[in-house]
């Protein structure tokens, strides 16, 4: 069994209750001295779903991700993640809970004083995994993001795109069922951004990861919605987002498509929620402006 098909330790411990969403926000509000940033946000993320949070800079996308990971507390409302009510959970329990999730930070947030290999191995070392297992899993995770060769390099020696990919490897190393991506393509050139989105795609289609991805780039959302990685061939296949099945794939699909849904934030509220196709065909001016900003 390869790394990609073996259930990871995090999966076995996580509470995924069938019929219940993996992430649920109810009337969440949060604000700072300057005022409320989020004014009553409610949404759900179902197992297997990829939810893309779209919004301009400062619209609160990062805040939503941090609250979902228990890194910040909301001023009002309730948050449930994998069967746990995070709203009033003490930090000690939150630390334990966070072992079941992966978080990819905007600039990577790699530990500067550790090598790439030590960064990716961090969580495994914290859990006292045996050395051989750590070595194997770290190499597999780096192979997944195509950065095996950088095992002994330090983060300052890597490019921005490589740091993001190592950050993704670090978040995915023990196969968490839920991953949060905070603007993974921010500040990167279009080619490198495509590479990052491909890695996210692979996580979705090969590991069955449920994810919440925040971005201000609408291309990222449509990239995730328009392509699928075929487990059979390992190649990217274009999907017609107006229909459920991939273009040119005549074989019947054994399971439903892992959906990619969009949430657009505007002025602290949810402006739009739906499939990529619905946004594409919407006649709303603000959404059309968003779509027009894509190259």
């Amino acid at each position, binding site marked *: 069994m390869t790394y990609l098909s073996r259930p990871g330790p995090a999966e076995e411990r996580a509470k995924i209750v069938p019929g219940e969403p993996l992430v649920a926000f109810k009337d969440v509000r949060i604000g700072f001295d300057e005022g409320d940033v989020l004014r009553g946000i409610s949404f759900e993320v179902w197992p297997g779903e990829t939810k893309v949070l779209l919004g301009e800079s400062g619209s609160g996308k990062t805040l939503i991700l*941090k609250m979902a*990971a228990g*890194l910040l507390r909301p001023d009002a409302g309730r948050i449930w993640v994998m069967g746990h009510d995070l709203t009033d959970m003490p*930090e*000690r329990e*939150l*630390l*334990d809970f*966070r*072992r079941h*999730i992966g*978080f990819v*930070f*905007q*600039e990577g*947030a*790699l*530990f*500067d004083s550790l090598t790439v290999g030590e960064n990716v191995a*961090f*969580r495994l070392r*914290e859990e006292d995994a045996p050395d051989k297992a750590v070595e194997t899993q770290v190499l597999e995770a780096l192979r997944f993001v195509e950065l095996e060769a950088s095992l002994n390099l330090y983060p300052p020696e890597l490019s921005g795109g490589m740091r993001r990919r190592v950050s993704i490897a*670090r978040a995915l190393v023990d196969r968490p069922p839920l991953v949060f991506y905070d603007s993974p393509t921010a500040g990167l050139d279009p080619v490198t951004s495509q590479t990052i989105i491909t890695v996210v795609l692979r996580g979705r289609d090969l590991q069955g990861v449920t994810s919440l991805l925040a971005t201000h780039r609408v291309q990222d959302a449509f990239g995730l919605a328009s392509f699928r990685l075929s487990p059979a061939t390992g190649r990217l296949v274009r999907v017609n987002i107006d229909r459920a099945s991939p273009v040119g794939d005549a074989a019947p699909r054994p399971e439903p498509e892992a959906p990619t849904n969009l949430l657009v934030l505007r002025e602290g509220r949810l402006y739009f929620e739906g499939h990529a196709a619905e946004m594409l065909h919407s006649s709303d001016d603000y959404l059309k402006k968003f779509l027009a900003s894509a190259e």
Partner: protein
Amino acid sequence: MPEVSELESIPSVLGDTVKRQVFAVQDYSLLAMQSIANVFTPPQYWADTLEQMDQIGVGSLPIVVITSFFIGGVMVLQTAGEFQRFGETALTGDAVSLSLVRELGPAITALLVAGRNASGIASELGSMVVTEQVDAMRALGTDPIRKLMTPRMIAMVTMLPLLVAVADFVGLVGGFVVAYFTLRLGAVQFWTRAIDVLEFGDIVQGMAKPVIFGFIISTVACYQGLRVKGGTQGVGRATTTAVVISSVMVLVFDFFLAKVLLFMFGKTS
């Protein structure tokens, strides 16, 4: 009525400032207590603690040795004339020993370590905060207080007394070298008196103080680093504040500890 609202804002600004300071002291106290509590429950990060002991203890050795040598020397230089006037040059050893062991060794070593290590700790942790590395640590399920603060606290509390012991000895050596060449004081006279004048209470004072100072310096520096706001400017501010506050606290506690310990060992009423 603009005038009234201007007058009203001064008390409220003062009130806000006082509230902020009180919250800061509360926040710091909770963090400091947590760093101690972490020593008694798992997981403990002994590898990180050893690394910090190396950086703080061994790393500060050169500066402590050089500084204390010259402090011992300058003490003899400044007091030699007075002792010679009373024909009691032999007392030089007593004076240098008592001042170094009771007071100058702990205080000056603590200030040196505060300058070197408090700034290093505050800037390292502050940089980690602004680059989201501390949040990343929390997201990976690791408690940053356990992993970052407790090892530094243990390292400083254990290494500072050892550094003070070295400083005391090297200071005496520096004092002796100057006494030998200026006062023609023999080795036997100097060293016998230097050791004989010390009582148990002096040694306790000299070793108890660095434990407290080490705790203050490490916890203040970690607190400033972990509570950084405002990017690189904030890191710079936190570094300066860490050195200033820990140095001032060391000297304030030095005074009160000296009073308490002198009283305990019956040297003062």
